[in-house]
């Protein structure tokens, strides 16, 4: 695979589990999915980052892998706050839910959110990445 040919420039991974952030970074890099992986350990930090860089288009991610089950602020809470961010941010970012939850309710809730374009079950593998971004 051509090392210059990345699917996305910058991919944010929001997950409280270090092992999952670690794995995501490895898989995304190995499959040349992202040139740069931006791991964030909480929804709050992710929102802060987006908010701080809302004017800086370069710093904003092209795609966000969002976990659901996180302490304090979960994935859905994140989406509620994300809604309030300026259009410029939301326009650039694609959100993919990445969760170990198999509850149909979670999937449904996620898919009904206008900012979520996909729902993936953990673990993240090379096969699953093939469909991301071009559903």
């Amino acid at each position, binding site marked *: 695979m051509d090392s210059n040919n990345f699917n996305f420039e910058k991919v944010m991974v929001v997950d409280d589990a270090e*092992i999952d952030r670690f794995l995501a970074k490895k898989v995304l890099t190995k499959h040349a999915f992202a040139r740069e992986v931006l791991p964030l350990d909480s929804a709050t930090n992710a929102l802060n980052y987006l908010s701080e860089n809302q004017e800086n288009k370069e710093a904003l991610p092209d795609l966000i892998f969002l976990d659901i089950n996180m302490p304090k602020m979960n994935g859905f809470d994140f989406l509620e706050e994300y809604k309030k961010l300026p259009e410029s941010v939301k326009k650039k970012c694609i959100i993919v839910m990445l969760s170990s939850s198999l509850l149909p309710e979670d999937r449904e809730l996620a898919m009904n959110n206008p900012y979520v374009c996909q729902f993936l079950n953990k673990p993240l593998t090379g096969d699953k990445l093939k469909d991301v971004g071009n559903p």
Partner: protein
Amino acid sequence: MNKEVKHLISKYFNEDRIPPAYAAFFGDISQLLDARQASASRLTSVADAALETVRRQLKDSLNVFGSSQDMDEYGRDAPSLIRLARRLKKECADRIFRQQKLLREMKHLKTIQSLASAGSWELPVINDELQMPGYWSDELFAVLGVRPGTVHPTSQVYKNYVHPDDRSYLAAAVGKAIKETGRYDIEYRMWRGEDPQQERTVREIGELVKDGATGKSTSLIGVTFDISDIRNTERALFKANVELRKLFDVMEDVFFSVNMEQEKLLQISPSCVQLYGYSVEAFFSTPDLWFTVIHHDDKKAVLESNKRLNKGESNQVEYRIRHKNGEVRWVEMRITPTLGHDGQLVRIDGIVTDVTKRREAELALANSELKFRSLLENSNDAITVTSEELRFLFVTQSLSRMIGYAAEEITGTSVFDFVHPDDHVTVNGLVNAMEKEPETPVHFEIRFRVKDDGWIWCEGSVTNHLNGDIVRGYIGNFRDVTYKIRYRKALEASNNRLKKTNNELDRFVYSVSHDLRAPLASVLGLLEYTMSETENEDVLQDLGMMKMSIEKLDRFILDILDYSRNARLEIKVQAVDFHQLLADIKDNLKFLHSRRSAVRFDINIQENGTFGSDAGRISILLNNLVSNAVRYADPEKADPFVEVNIAAGPEGADITVRDNGIGIAKEYHGRIFDMFFRVSEKSNGSGLGLYLAKETVDKLKGRITLASAPGTGTTFNIFLPSLFK
């Protein structure tokens, strides 16, 4: 003038109007009588000539009266003349008397004719033929409606006044009388004044007068009188009589009158036969029969109430009598008394009416009212009627029993005095609801005050009958449901606790499954990543085994999650899209069993109309069966496959899941749906998969069977009914 003569004149004549001839005559007589008294002898010597003159004058006068035949008896002597004079005197007196009598009778006749509207007439008859003209009395003219003398009294003229239809009838009667019978008495119609509008009915009696000597008819004499009024009266009387008779015939009431002085029955109407069964005669012959027939228990009351008659007050009393046929009947007797001058009761008049039916109806009504009231009072439900201002107008004893206050204490007070303050708002709501829909019961649950003992819960309904015909007000009926409400409240509380527990359990299962699954997913991800990074066969084999083990654990968690959800979640019926459902299953297979995706997955779906069920559960079911088929695919087979056939419609869905896998031996068929049952130690499932499948099918009210043989494959046949109502 001689006294006797004077007396005579004054007696028989109007002294001022004595004709001159008579006056002179009376003068002569007077002189003669006076002379005789003076000297009879001298008289004899007086000239015979003078006496002769007197004698002749007397004879002439008597001749006028037609009695001259025996005149020769009287001589020329004085005594004879005196006798003659006396006779004349007598004749004169008689004549005057007769004249006056005649005059009087004529006057009477005229009056009678006029009063009786009876006209008399006479027509001469010669040779049995009526002659003209005849005589009509003034009243006959009046009967005919003309003035007397204005028309000729002939039968020809008379005919014009007779009703044309009756003319020949009259003529025939007259003719028959003249020729045969000599008399007729008929009625016919007359047009008074020849005016058809003034039709009258007359009665005419005619009689033929015959000459005594010859035996020939000389005249027809008769009377015609207007009997219209009589006839009209008769007719009216007849009609009245007929009606009265009818009335008496249908009258069931018995009338009677009693002379109380002699205690004698004066009259009793024949209807007594119907009412009492005894005849009029029986009542007359047995004076106390009316009392004898009175029911023993009522006799005293009747006598007692009749006492008022002695005071002149009318009496009305109801009592029972025994009919002759043994029946007991209720009668009502009304008596009006008549008191004499001395204040004593002289007569009573009364009516007895059979009121058995009315009485029975009254008794029946009273009886049903009694029953109704007893039902009301003995019912455990309280019944209340309240005014528009919410004051109790009526409450049953059952309310008293319920809340301890006497009915008298409750009546007249406000509803709010007895309703728990927290429920006043409910009462106001009830009134609003009843105003909107009168005559529709409105349900309520309200706390009522119990005397000295707090509150009870009452449940019931109240209806707006403010415009009711019989009872006006809000009519409520309710019962004490305190225990029921307490029980229900306890039940609600416990139910809420259970719901909470259930929710907690649900959240627990969810979070446990997630918490267990998340690290597994992480490990699985790392394993796959590591495997993709190494070429070392030994390492790869180890990692592969680890992976299989983790996958098994993962599936186990999923199964438990599914089981818990199937058991607790409500069935969510919706239209099932099998195409979408199986596409998802196919997707799942790809990720969950990527290593064995060599198994061919065929899907045939026929949908005829909408099938309704719980798609989530069907998904669990098919996921289980399909993944089993994939997991237990026969590695010996060249073309391992799993085939899902679905025919679904409004009636239900027939589903078969068929594979050519390793199959299941017959002896296990009965147990494979058991929890944690596994066919062999080689199977690496949780032992929950088919149990879950069966549970799901049961939950969806369907059925599942299998046909399987080792080496051939397994087929599951499932039927699910459509759950749309």
